């Protein structure tokens, strides 16, 4: 921190939506040349606040001050002109264009009196820019050919190219491997060294403490405190976020395993473009254990799970459930046999957005005798069921008559988790069960998951959150490029080793998976 003046000052920002106060007189001071983390649970108002700063929303009250000058942004265009850049979670890049073209897109230097794009000049500027900040980016590669981490750097360069002094990153680590996360934090350091200011939105305590200079915590739309990252603790931040004390570490006891519930043998699955997504994967899930699958998103986990749950036809191999061949069984048979499934895509799969929670509560069991007696759905029973789930899983707002679409992502997730857990399942297939869920509810979901395990049900847990899979799993498979790299004991493995395996490399002392797999099963 070379300077101590304020780059961005938000004063008393209030942003109301009908029925909700998303930001309630929030103050935020961001020092020039610092990395400032905006930490909070889902729905705490982090993204809303940053959208106000970026000109996407106009606040109902309060002032935005940039470079000691009060501004009114009516669109992102105004914010960009004031030197603010935002990198969204979903990159806005054109896959078929080169890095340099993407960066210059919309602001291309012109030649011949504005008639043509000066590609050379654009490329030169991009090279110069990436050299200045030490970015390892080849300007001539097409976006489709570079990794997600590089794409993110291209997004950052794009903002710098447009003259950004203040960079807002929305959940920048969501899509990265642990190594890429480290690289990103290196980039952020380089940026601040050269006088840029970074604000990043996160709900991960560790990241906020590790990468930021200052951490501002939002809760229920209010600023509940700004702390110095070096002087705070995980416990303090967690308490600020949730408003009560939180047990952070999952207490996983030794499993008491029984019969095999799920037996996946030599399974190969194609993705939507008929490209092999899963190749020759085998594993077992037994009663009373959590079998974890770790990996960076998009390495075949989604297709693997869909093949197991009956949403996708496998190319070859078999799936046995409860000792019965289920490879080609229709989805409904699997549900009836006791396979609960928390899908990855809650808004497309897990919930019917235009149904209320009562109707959504019986999705999957609409034919089961629990709710459908004599060809008529027992809506009273369904209502009672939905209200139970809403209460027990702390779905907010606590009203079963709300349409699913009106709930925030985290609350949608809680409802799905509750519905699936309460199915009395033999096997729970949980993909990202706590994605987007606040840490208070995360703790509850984790506890319930372990309770189910201790009741002797099998759990297949897929998550890209390392601490989650590592903490909950009894055995942990690491997937890379459609293949299980290794099945490891989560208590013995280090985060670095996991990171390497997720990136497709074997750390020292690791053999190819077949032996490990056998050892894992036999342990």
């Amino acid at each position: 921190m070379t300077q101590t003046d304020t780059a961005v000052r938000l004063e008393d920002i209030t942003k109301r939506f009908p029925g909700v106060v998303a930001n309630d007189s929030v103050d935020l001071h961001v020092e020039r040349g610092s990395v400032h983390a905006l930490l909070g649970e889902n729905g705490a108002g982090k993204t809303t606040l940053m959208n106000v700063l970026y000109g996407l929303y106009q606040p109902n009250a309060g002032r935005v001050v940039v470079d000691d000058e009060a501004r009114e942004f009516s669109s992102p265009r105004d914010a960009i002109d004031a030197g603010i850049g935002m990198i969204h979670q979903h990159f806005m890049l054109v896959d078929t264009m080169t890095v340099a073209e993407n960066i210059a897109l919309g602001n291309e230097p012109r030649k011949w009196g504005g008639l043509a794009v000066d590609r050379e000049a654009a490329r030169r500027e991009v090279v110069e820019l990436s050299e200045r900040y030490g970015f390892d980016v080849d300007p001539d590669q097409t976006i489709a050919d570079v990794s997600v981490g590089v794409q993110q750097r291209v997004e950052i360069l794009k903002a710098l190219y447009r003259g950004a002094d203040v960079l807002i990153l929305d959940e920048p680590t969501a899509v990265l491997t642990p190594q890429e996360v480290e690289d990103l934090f290196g980039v952020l350091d380089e940026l601040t060294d050269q006088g840029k200011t970074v604000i990043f939105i996160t709900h991960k305590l560790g990241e906020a403490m590790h990468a930021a200079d200052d951490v501002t915590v939002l809760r229920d739309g209010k600023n509940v405190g700004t702390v110095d990252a070096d002087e705070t603790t995980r416990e303090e931040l967690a308490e600020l976020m949730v408003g009560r004390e939180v047990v952070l570490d999952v207490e996983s006891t030794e499993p008491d395993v029984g019969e095999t519930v799920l037996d996946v043998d030599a399974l190969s699955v194609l993705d939507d473009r008929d490209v092999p997504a899963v190749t020759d994967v085998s594993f077992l899930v037994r009663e009373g254990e959590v079998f974890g699958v770790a990996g960076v998103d998009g390495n075949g986990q989604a297709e693997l799970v869909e093949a197991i749950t009956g949403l996708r036809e496998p190319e070859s191999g078999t799936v046995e459930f409860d000792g019965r061949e289920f490879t080609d069984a229709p989805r409904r048979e699997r549900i009836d046999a006791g396979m609960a499934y928390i899908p990855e895509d809650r808004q497309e799969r897990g919930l019917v957005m235009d149904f209320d929670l009562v109707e959504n509560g019986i999705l999957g069991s609409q034919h089961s005798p629990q709710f459908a007696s004599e060809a008529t759905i027992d809506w009273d029973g369904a209502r009672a069921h939905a209200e139970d789930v809403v209460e027990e899983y702390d779905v907010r707002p606590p009203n079963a008559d709300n349409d699913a679409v009106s709930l925030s992502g985290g609350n949608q997730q809680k409802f799905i988790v509750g519905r699936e857990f309460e199915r009395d399942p033999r096997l729970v297939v949980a993909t990202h069960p706590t994605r987007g869920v606040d840490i208070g509810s995360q703790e509850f979901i984790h506890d319930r998951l372990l309770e189910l395990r201790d009741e002797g049900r099998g759990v297949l847990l897929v998550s890209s959150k390392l601490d989650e899979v590592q903490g909950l799993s009894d055995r942990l498979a690491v997937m890379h490029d459609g293949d299980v790299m290794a099945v490891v004991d989560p208590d013995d493995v280090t985060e670095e080793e996991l990171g390497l395996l997720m990136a497709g490399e074997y750390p020292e002392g690791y053999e190819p998976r077949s032996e490990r797999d056998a050892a894992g099963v036999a342990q």
Partner: protein
Amino acid sequence: MSAADRAHDLLGRLVHASAFERFLISTSALLLSVFIGALIILGAGRMTDCASAAYTIAVPGKFVTQFVGGSAVFSMGFCYDPFAVYDLLFLGALGDVLSNPLNGQFATTLAETTILMFTGVAVAVAFRADIFNIGVQGQLVVGALTTGVVLAFVAPALAGLGLLATVVLLPLGLLLGAVAGGAYAAIPGALKAYADANEVITTIMLNFVATSIALFLVSREKFFKDPASFANQTVPLPDVALFPKFLFRPRDDVSLLAFAFAVVVLVGIWYLLQHTPFGYDLRTSGLQPDAAEYGGVDADRTIVSSMTLSGALAGIGGAVYVLMVLGNFQTGVPDYGFDGITVSILAGNNPLGVGFAALLFGVLKSGSIVVQVGSDVPPTLVGVLRGLIILFVAMPEFFRMIGRKFGSFDRPSEPAVADATGGGSDE
């Protein structure tokens, strides 16, 4: 904000409109269409010669004369009186209800309404499963043909039994219509489910097939043509096979029994959709196919069964047309199936709403006959007025359906959703 953004916003608001908002939209659309229609009537009246084309024969200038000094208006050359025309269009359909509730006009209104209820709900059921069944017309023709032909063979044998024959023949006729219509609709259903054939194309083509087959069979004496008639029609069915026409005059082709049956069917379909697992599957597939698949719904089977149900309802409509209106099968069936599409859209694809939308259609249809008979306004102009009303009332619902299907509209009032897309999938 650009025009495109505004249009997008408007469409988004339409998609998320509440039931009450939709009612207000429909009502104001109706009033607006009447207002614009009134201007057209005045304009048309200006272009005719008042001397030769008297403004209205039945009620000459009643309202205008009364309220705004009509004589002055007419001396300026506006020959048609919009008040009188709309009076005839809406109230003419009811006839002289107060003194004689069972008059001929009201009978026509009720008969039209009854058949449109069946075709409307047929389209609605398919729409709810996200299937565009344009083949209701063809399914109605097939149902009507089957009922007319089979009953012509069966009925004479039972004709002597009186009421007992009616108790047997009437349900049989309806069942025949349902089975034939359902089977005919199952074809495009199966083609869509198992061969990925677009149902819009197949159902339109099958409409032509149905009409042509009906014409072929009913125009040849060696098949089903009535030898005693010059027209292309089947043998008239005995009265015991038809819907009993109590209360109304015998020459009015309407039956309160059929109307009551239609109401029961609408309520039954509503119950089926809302309260049975099958209805749940159907609605889920229509709203979100991926979620339906997740919930264990067999997508292919649902497509076939909802098409079959839709076709069966259309077929019953055809049977009712034969058993209530015609008394046999005749070629040249009116476009009940196509009107059913509009009725369904008007009703927001809600089976109960179909009843009211069908009534509006019935009123407009018999009302426009009254306008033609009772005034000098040309029939084409009456058609324009009818079309205007339907267009205005149906358009908002139509755009809602389109927007729902193709647009992605986050509720503008949900910050939680905004936050979820930004920070929701945070890993």
